[in-house]
């Protein structure tokens, strides 16, 4: 039965159900239970924002608090997974991926290929992304493009509680290394989520709404902004399709291409950067594959190519928002030109 729960509780529920279903599922991370070695009760934290809260009492052997040694415990999650476990490594902030990059980039991602197809490494790394909290340059990034660039890794970026639960379950059950990016602004977002176990296939985009004029591709928190922009545009008669790819590796290019073939216009919205990122990637693939359908140059709405600033006004200017998306859509519609032409005719 479905009921409304928060994004973070949906993630917690996915892990609990997977741990109930499969004894080989383990969780490694910092304070995933909490209070280890103190005289106080365990499960004091359940992760820094409480996402794993309540799992330790159910599975005390399998929820494992680790020292602040990201290379060691992410590497251990990889190593354990190559030895028959299904480890979920919680890496608090995705900004910390730099500390343990090798264990994902050179180890987990490459085992299967290097070892001639014999290795299976069903590890999942959960990590937070996203700006908007004045957390500044080292706790606000969305570096998933770097991981989508690596053959051998899968990159999952949910935008709502239903998807979060189903996609995380799919990651844990998947036999390849998955990096699961959780936008911290979505943790308290509520949505309908079935109580029972379910999975959402990796590599299957979600078409949130269909409109004939423009295809907007948006990820994670940007989906909400795209929806807001689309509402405003609808008042002017501009109808938007919104596609949430949900996973950027694998990427459901079929859904994106066939939508652009119908609309002829593309706007990609990404909280990460314009350079060498997922927005540029999608824009390039659309240009290469469905060029003839395009009525206007694809547009990207991204963060500018600067670190995330601290001051609230700078951070607000840094983030994509509905207004910026709206402007990009109007640009693909040639609306600014149309207005000018109309003014000239008058």
């Amino acid at each position, binding site marked *: 039965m479905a009921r409304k729960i928060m994004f973070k509780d949906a993630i917690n529920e996915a892990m609990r159900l997977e741990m109930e279903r499969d004894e080989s599922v*383990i969780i490694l991370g910092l304070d995933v239970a909490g209070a280890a070695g103190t005289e106080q009760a365990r499960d004091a934290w359940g992760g820094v924002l409480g996402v794993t809260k309540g799992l330790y009492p159910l599975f005390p*052997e*399998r929820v*494992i608090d*680790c*020292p602040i*040694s990201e*290379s*060691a*415990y*992410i*590497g*251990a*999650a*990889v*190593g*354990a*997974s*190559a*030895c*028959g*476990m299904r*480890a979920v490594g919680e890496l608090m902030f995705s900004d910390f991926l730099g500390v343990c990059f*090798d*264990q994902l980039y*050179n*180890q987990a991602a*490459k*085992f*299967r*290929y*290097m*070892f*001639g*197809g*014999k*290795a*299976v490494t069903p590890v999942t790394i959960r990590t937070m992304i996203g700006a908007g909290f004045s957390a500044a340059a080292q706790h606000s990034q969305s570096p998933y493009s770097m991981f989508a660039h690596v*053959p*051998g890794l*899968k990159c999952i970026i949910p935008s709502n509680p239903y998807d979060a639960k189903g996609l995380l379950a799919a990651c844990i059950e*998947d*036999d*390849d290394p998955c990096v699961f990016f959780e936008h911290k602004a979505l943790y308290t977002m509520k949505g309908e989520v079935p109580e029972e176990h379910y999975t959402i296939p990796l*590599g299957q985009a979600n078409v949130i709404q269909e409109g004939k004029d423009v295809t907007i591709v948006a990820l994670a928190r940007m989906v909400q902004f795209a929806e807001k922009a689309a509402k405003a545009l609808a008042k002017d008669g501009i109808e938007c399709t919104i596609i949430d790819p949900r996973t950027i590796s*694998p990427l459901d290019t079929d859904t994106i291409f066939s939508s652009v073939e119908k609309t002829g216009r593309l706007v990609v919205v990404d909280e990460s950067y314009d350079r060498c990122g997922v927005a540029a990637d999608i824009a390039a693939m659309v240009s290469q594959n469905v060029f003839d359908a395009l009525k206007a140059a694809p547009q990207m709405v991204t963060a500018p190519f600067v670190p995330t600033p601290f001051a609230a006004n700078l951070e607000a200017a840094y983030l994509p928002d509905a207004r910026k998306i709206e402007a990009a859509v109007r640009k693909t519609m040639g609306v600014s030109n149309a207005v000018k032409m109309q003014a000239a005719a008058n």
Partner: protein
Amino acid sequence: MKAQLSKENLLKAYRKMREIREFEDRVHVEFAKGTLPGFVHLYSGEEAVAVGICEHLNDLDRIASTHRGHGHCIAKGVELEGMMAEIYGKKTGTCGGKGGSMHIADLDKGMMGANGIVGAGPPLIAGAALASKLRKDGSVGVVFFGDGASNQGTNFESMNMAVTLDLPMIFVLENNGYAESTSPKYSAKVGSDNIADRARGFGMPAVTVDGNDFFAVYEAAAEAINRARKGGGPTFIECKTMRYFGHFEGDAQTYRPKDEVKNARINDCPLKRFAAAVTSAGLVEATELEAIDKAVLDQVEKAVKAAEAAPQPDLDALMADVYVSY
């Protein structure tokens, strides 16, 4: 200790060491001819370490190796023919020709891979050991690493985590005196000549042994591995040894004293020392060892011939096996 090993075990250990020596010496020769692709790092001289440790292990026990990994592979039971074909980049290689010298792995044998990244192994084996601990099957994880890798953060982090989580894990430091061309006297100043002294600071038992003495390694490994199997946590074993070739094939080795290797080959060769010990104790006849030498020579010759004759990987292997499903 010698007496505690059956004759069968002694012969097996000698054979493994001879296989490593013969394999590596032959790769050295073939590489010099320019017939091998890529680059190779040879294990000759360090045989007593890999074999002294791995003689205690079974296929459920996991090891992680290094860029100098051929010796660990052989000691853990990986087939020579597949290894040689892999080094030649052939379809019949252990990894289908897609890994090469630095990435030979055979997971069915508990060999989790040679590794091109210095210091990558300790976290992986911490994970393997954690899996052993959770499964309660009595298996252990062993990570081999060099004096160079002993300075990597991954190694320090993993020593701490192995103690924290009480993992059945053995750290085997192969101190061959050179991290590429740099001496640990410069890069691993621990207030003594023994890098193992660091490990004690992490709260685990640590020993330094003569890594060219099979029996010294074997004995230290027995204690460490038995302890780990019984839930007694990690151990650090430093093996002082020497590599007979350069860091990589083609290394001019201008950083080494003249005759260092020549003298070691004469006076401190692990195979010669093993042979002298077991024959003088009357445990094995010299002729039995000579028979092994000859058999291994043939085995390596066969592996080279098979590798030379084997086909290259099919071109569709290029795109295969990145993912289980995608």
